[in-house]
């Protein structure tokens, strides 16, 4: 695989990796550095990468594993990595308070979900990944992902309905 091939087939996926890497690492600047490191790792193994039958899948899997390793090295809590969200600040103080409350409720519901379901739900609804990309990163089959996603969505909707009906 030469430089041009690498740029088109592998490096072009950097933008797609960004949401997942930024969410796992909880920081945009860290995400940039991490993606560069991931790309250098893949460049060093470009011969094997070029022969791989599913290059995007390999790139997503490498990125996810790299982030998990990084968290392990920094001894951060891996279970909560899927819940690292960038809190968007609002100009309106009242809205911000309301948003914080809403966010806390949703996070609590997400924490209750089984780990796989939670990760898949976040990857699909928040990060906006295709089923094939999620399958590559999690090493699960697309059909299995659809089932887990369906369960997670139903659970979240049900919990939210319950919470807001009681209020």
């Amino acid at each position, binding site marked *: 695989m030469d430089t041009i091939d690498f*740029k088109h087939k592998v*490096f*072009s996926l*950097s*933008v797609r990796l*960004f*949401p997942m890497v*930024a*969410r796992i690492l909880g920081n*945009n600047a860290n995400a*940039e550095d991490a*993606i*560069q490191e991931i*790309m*250098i790792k893949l*460049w060093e193994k470009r011969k094997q990468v070029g022969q791989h039958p599913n290059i995007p899948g390999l790139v997503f899997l490498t990125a996810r594993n790299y982030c998990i390793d990084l968290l392990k090295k920094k001894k951060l809590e891996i279970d909560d990595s899927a819940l690292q*969200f*960038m809190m*968007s600040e609002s100009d309106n103080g009242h809205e911000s308070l309301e*948003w914080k409350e*809403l*966010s806390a*409720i*949703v996070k609590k519901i997400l924490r209750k979900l089984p780990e796989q379901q939670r990760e898949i739900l976040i990857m*699909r*609804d*928040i*990060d*906006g990944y*295709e089923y094939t990309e999620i399958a590559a990163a999690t090493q699960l089959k697309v059909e299995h*992902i*659809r*089932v*887990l*996603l*369906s369960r997670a*969505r*139903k659970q*979240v*909707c049900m919990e*939210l*309905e319950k919470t*807001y009906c009681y209020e």
Partner: protein
Amino acid sequence: MNEKGIEKLTKEYEAGASTLNEEQFLFDNAENSHSISEVWSTFVKRNRIEAPEGFNDKLWNSFQRRTVRKHRFKISVISVAASIILIIALSIGNFGQKELSYKEKEALLNEALDMFAEPEQEIAQERILYEDETIIIYASLE
């Protein structure tokens, strides 16, 4: 889209059978359609992370700089290693050279002395005509 359409999409969403575009449509219209939880849709929209503008180009430039630097460093290391190996090989070659025996040295010395043999003979063939403390007069045989 009418209510039936949205209802169908919502069912597909819950079954994990909708496309990303359909899901986006549901999130965008959650307030009006009450199809999926407004809270969930707000949470999703507020937590979306997008790569900064020109991210790929910026990262590519930085990536290329790093890979070129690494490549140069590799070449430097290889050059230094090759030079060291060459120097070691030459020194080993010099140390291992055979020292000459006395006979060989003698033969070489004689060969060198032979080069000066002719002028000495020439001097010997000259006859002394007169000799005192300050002067010697030779006469050539030719």
